[in-house]
């Protein structure tokens, strides 16, 4: 008993941290209808500014708290509402997810650009002194200030938000607004203001959580907050995103069970090294499979959503014949120039960068295919790429298989995993599916990729030159360029063929309207599995290509944060087209390379740029880059037609 307590009590602050975040996620979902992936970033922003004020500018604790929490927290929430979520139609769940993800990727990248890269040390505790032992549980289990403040704060927060939601009229209005803002307006309630208030409250809670939890961490790092939130998602899911006390309970349980098990399990065992860190994500998968309430997540709740016009069809690509010829000629000329440059004068540094861009392009092609063509959102594409890379590597190590042959087998393995994932989430849609892929990515991150048998540890392993023919591994040889170019061309051609064929038409119908597609006889389940399988194969090919280019395969190259970033990047450059993937791949590496020449604090700017682009997704689902391209073509067209006095071609849509 004594021993059990000794192991369990240190789990309490962790459990409370999960609980606080889970309650915040449920609160936001219940009052705004948005599952806010940006919540962790909000908490981090408050903690970051708080620590920056206290450490770097010697502000008194209370003043920093007012500024970073009481002001910044609600202001961030209000800005999210005003600038972003208010503009998203209530039924568009993909846009809500993408917007939240852009905040999660963008804000932690932005803060160092604005405030500089300080080494921010943990913030002072507000109520109890963390180190002081206040009393003992049983005979000799010490209870210190960290535990006390964690418990006190969690209970207080839970009571306050439950009372707000269940016992006040404002809470009733918030719940109503989350279900249908329009129906609430018909009752004469200023629903936009109610929703704005809900966002302010949610922001305040995120801020408080961020600052008060900081004492449990030694430094204030974005990574920790994001991980914390992702683990808290499991607790929120167990409560079906509905009950805050249940979410809190599961949060505490996850923390306490983890640490208790950690105490009892032998450190060298598989359970200790693989299962334990994955515990929250195993819980998340279990919740997604078995909590019935989560299956309804994708469904629109608003009976008045029929007032919104349908999503606009992809803009008609009616290019005049003349401009079309110019664009085509320009494309082939550019391609020719690119190939010739890569083979002749391109400086090795840039050749390496562009080679990497082509490998990324193949991975991104899997995103455009899955999201753009089939309308399914996956947060595990980097994981699928990694599965293929590690498979190919292990086949080369153990069976002496040629790495290129291994790449094909690896891509098969990735598509198998993707297919299994799709089968496991057949009953989920929208947010549920996104969470399932995220859980899978995290499982592989913590339990599979770091394993000795897979990667040889977190450092990964290096490719050996005899695994590959033709000196492909030598970094600045042209052989790699030719290989990557061919693979990319084949993948692009394959995707185009599939898009134009029957499967592509089915998938497009499914993206347009799952209900409508089912109505005309499309077997949704099978189409979705197929889409995942094909996309897994593409990601796998891209992953092995990237591995050859990097010459090492390490878990860090394929973690879940990259998966999130991938979605954000591709959504910016154009998720609907093959060009979008190539623009994303080349754009990412060129931007990062250019930033090498900029001051150190600007290193993260590439992700800020893409996150900003992705924030426009709700308004321009074709991608901001594609939109601008189309606008410029239209402008050029007008100039040309004016010169020739020919009427512009009419763009006709459905009327």
């Amino acid at each position, binding site marked *: 008993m004594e021993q059990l307590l000794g192991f369990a009590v240190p789990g309490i602050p962790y459990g409370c941290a999960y609980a606080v975040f889970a309650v915040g996620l449920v609160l936001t979902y219940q009052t705004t209808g948005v599952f806010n992936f940006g919540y962790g970033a909000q908490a981090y922003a408050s903690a970051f500014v708080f620590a920056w004020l206290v450490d770097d500018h010697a502000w008194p604790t209370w003043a920093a708290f007012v500024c970073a929490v009481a002001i910044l927290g609600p202001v961030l929430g209000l800005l999210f509402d005003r600038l972003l979520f208010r503009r998203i139609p209530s039924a568009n769940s993909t846009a809500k997810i993408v917007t939240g993800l852009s905040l999660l990727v963008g804000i932690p990248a932005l803060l160092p650009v604005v405030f500089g890269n300080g080494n921010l040390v943990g913030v002072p505790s507000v109520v109890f002194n963390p180190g002081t032992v206040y009393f003992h549980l049983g005979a000799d289990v010490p209870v210190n200030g960290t535990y006390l403040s964690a418990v006190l704060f969690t209970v207080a927060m839970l009571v306050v938000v439950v009372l707000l939601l269940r016992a006040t*009229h404002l809470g*009733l*209005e918030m*719940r*109503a607004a989350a*279900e*249908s803002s*329009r*129906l*609430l*307006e*018909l*009752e*004469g*309630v*200023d*629903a*936009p203001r109610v929703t704005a208030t809900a966002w302010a409250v949610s922001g305040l809670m995120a801020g408080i959580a961020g600052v008060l939890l900081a004492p449990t961490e030694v430094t204030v790092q974005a990574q920790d907050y994001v991980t914390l939130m992702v683990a808290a998602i499991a607790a929120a899911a167990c409560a079906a995103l509905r009950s805050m006390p249940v979410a809190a309970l599961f949060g505490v349980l996850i923390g306490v069970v983890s640490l208790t098990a950690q105490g009892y399990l032998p450190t060298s065992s598989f359970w200790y090294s693989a299962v334990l860190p994955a515990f929250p994500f195993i819980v998340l998968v279990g919740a997604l499979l078995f909590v019935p309430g989560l299956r309804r997540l994708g469904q629109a*709740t608003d*009976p*008045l959503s029929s*007032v*919104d*016009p*349908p999503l*606009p069809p992809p803009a008609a690509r009616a290019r005049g014949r003349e401009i079309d010829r110019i664009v085509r000629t320009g494309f082939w000329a550019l391609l020719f120039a690119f190939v010739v440059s890569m083979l002749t004068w391109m400086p090795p540094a840039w050749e390496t960068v562009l080679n990497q861009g082509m490998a990324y392009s193949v991975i991104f092609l899997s995103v455009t295919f899955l999201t753009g063509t089939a309308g399914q959102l996956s947060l595990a594409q980097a994981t699928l790429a990694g599965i293929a890379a590690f498979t190919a590597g292990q086949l080369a190590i153990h069976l002496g298989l040629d790495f290129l042959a291994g790449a094909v087998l690896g891509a098969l393995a990735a598509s198998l995993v993707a297919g299994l994932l799709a089968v496991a989430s057949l009953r989920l849609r929208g947010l549920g599916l996104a969470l399932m892929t995220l859980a899978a990515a995290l499982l592989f991150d913590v339990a599979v990729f770091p394993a000795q048998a897979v990667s040889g540890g977190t450092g990964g392993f290096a490719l050996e030159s005899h695994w590959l023919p033709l000196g492909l591994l030598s970094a600045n040889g042209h052989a790699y360029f030719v290989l990557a170019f061919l693979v990319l061309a084949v993948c692009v051609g394959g995707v185009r063929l599939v898009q134009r064929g029957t499967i592509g038409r089915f998938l497009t119908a499914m993206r347009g309207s799952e209900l409508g597609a089912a109505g005309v006889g499309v077997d949704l389940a099978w189409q979705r599995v197929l889409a995942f399988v094909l996309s897994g194969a593409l990601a796998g090919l891209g992953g092995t290509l990237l591995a050859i280019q990097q010459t090492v395969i390490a878990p860090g190259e394929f973690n879940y944060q990259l998966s999130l970033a991938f979605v954000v990047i591709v959504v910016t450059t154009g998720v609907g087209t093959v060009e979008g993937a190539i623009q994303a791949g080349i754009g990412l590496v060129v931007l990062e390379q250019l930033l090498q020449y900029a001051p150190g604090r600007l290193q993260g700017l590439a992700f800020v740029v893409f996150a900003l682009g992705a924030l426009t997704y709700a308004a321009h689902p074709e991608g901001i880059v594609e939109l601008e391209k189309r606008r410029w073509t239209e402008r050029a067209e007008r100039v040309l037609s004016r010169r020739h006095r020919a009427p512009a071609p009419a763009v006709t*849509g*459905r*009327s």
Partner: protein
Amino acid sequence: MSHDDRTALELDDVCAAYGPYRALFAVSFSVEKGSAIALLGPNGAGKSTVARVVSGLLPASSGHVRVGGSDVTGKAPWAIARMGLSHVPEGRGVFDSLSVEENLVLSFRRRAGRRNLAASLERAYARFPLLAERRHDRAGTLSGGQQRLVSLAKVLVVPPGVLVADELSLGLAPSVVDDVYAALADVRRRGTTLVVVEQQVDRALGLASSAVVLEHGSVAYFGPASGARAVMAQVLERRSRSDGANSL
């Protein structure tokens, strides 16, 4: 345009569109205070769109809407609702995730005031004992007809100035439809101006003194209720003929 105080609701050359899809073309009609008007037309004619423009859910792209003499064009739905206009939308009009009582509280708190809340609830439950039985159940668990009762209870207890009821009888058993129309007549007797959107022409014309018939988003008829039946028949006739032509 006549602007006398006796007009409760007036639409003046109203056009409306869902994004690029145009749905209403220069719709004009008016309703006298305390009277009832039937808004008729085949499926897709734009009846619900008129209701949405009146309550502000869909902004008019041109033209004007006046409620009780003041221009409400471009106002938010909640502001229009506070002027005494109540819109019971087509289909589900209750909050699924809230209990029956919470649904009623949301409405009564604003319309009857915090003080009269308890009394209003009492009256609603007295009129519809079934709702009293199920007051703590989630409204989503009620049947379609029972949900309609919740909407009716709201307007019966605190009658609005103008009530726009969109296909209240849709999908209900005939005996329940009788109850619904009895309730509507009750509301009208207490001074509420009614705009009744219906596909069941006879029911609506039995209640209303005037009628509007819509066809393809335009007004095909506006006048006394007695003349609407013939126009409605013509509209349906034209429609079935064009359907026949399309299917050939």
